[in-house]
């Protein structure tokens, strides 16, 4: 194929990637508005943070097609992949310890179960959430 044809292919692929990223951002907006509790909202919110961002930046890289800018975009993706789990962990942990997690919506709740086992069922065993005063300190 000629050079111009490859340019067209790159543009089309980049548009598809941008469209996918924008759709994921929209889906995150819908999910964060409609989901019932903190963990479900976090689940919705992480979609554009990693996959959506990767798609959008791949689209941008295919459109720019110049060396330096593309490396900066790789930097953004790597940084986001490093920091998104940390932020999600901090938010989820804080949510668990401050009682924002609705345990009736959870299918599996291993943290509460493990904490109950560790405490030897002293405070009712499984099914109880650790209080912020003592259990919060002794969590993960």
């Amino acid at each position, binding site marked *: 194929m000629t050079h111009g044809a490859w340019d067209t292919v790159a543009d089309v692929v980049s548009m598809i990637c941008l469209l996918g990223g924008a759709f994921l951002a929209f889906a995150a907006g819908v999910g964060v508005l409609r989901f019932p509790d903190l963990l479900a909202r976090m689940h919705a919110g992480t979609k554009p943070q990693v996959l959506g961002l990767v798609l959008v930046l791949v689209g941008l890289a295919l459109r720019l097609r110049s060396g330096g800018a593309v490396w900066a975009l790789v930097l953004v993706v790597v940084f986001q992949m490093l920091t998104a789990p940390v932020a999600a962990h901090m938010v989820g942990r804080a949510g668990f310890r401050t009682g924002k997690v609705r345990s009736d919506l959870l299918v599996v709740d291993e943290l509460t179960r493990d904490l109950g086992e560790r405490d030897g069922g002293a405070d009712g065993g499984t099914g109880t959430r650790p209080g*912020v005063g003592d259990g919060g300190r002794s969590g993960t």
Partner: protein
Amino acid sequence: MSVVVIVCAVLLVVGAVLAVVRAEKGPSMLDRTIALDIVVTTMLAGIALYAAVYRRADVVPILVVLSLVGFVGSVTIARFASVEPEGEGRVRTREEIAAEEAARRAAEESERAEAEGAVTGEHHESTPVDADEHHGGGAAGEVR
């Protein structure tokens, strides 16, 4: 191509607006954190879309900075999240604020009247302050 760009822009704007609605409603601080995280991510995507449309490589540093800032913000809020009393995250109405102000003023008035009424020579023992609070201790309800 311009149609695709417009569709992308509309999707991004609608997603950001929905996230802002959640940030306004959000019953707790953490819900707002997540919603604002999504707003930041949507802004990232919007700037990337702009750069892609006009082939501007010079806005790429903005993307780097924005991804840094979003991380710092959400971690800071999550670190200092605390147990909020029921209804604390709600924006109060004007009447409620007025009622609270009136109650506070009445309490101050009665305190002052009590102080004037007290015998001047009598030395009141001050209430013991929580030592932790004034020496770098954690705030009440702080998550460790």
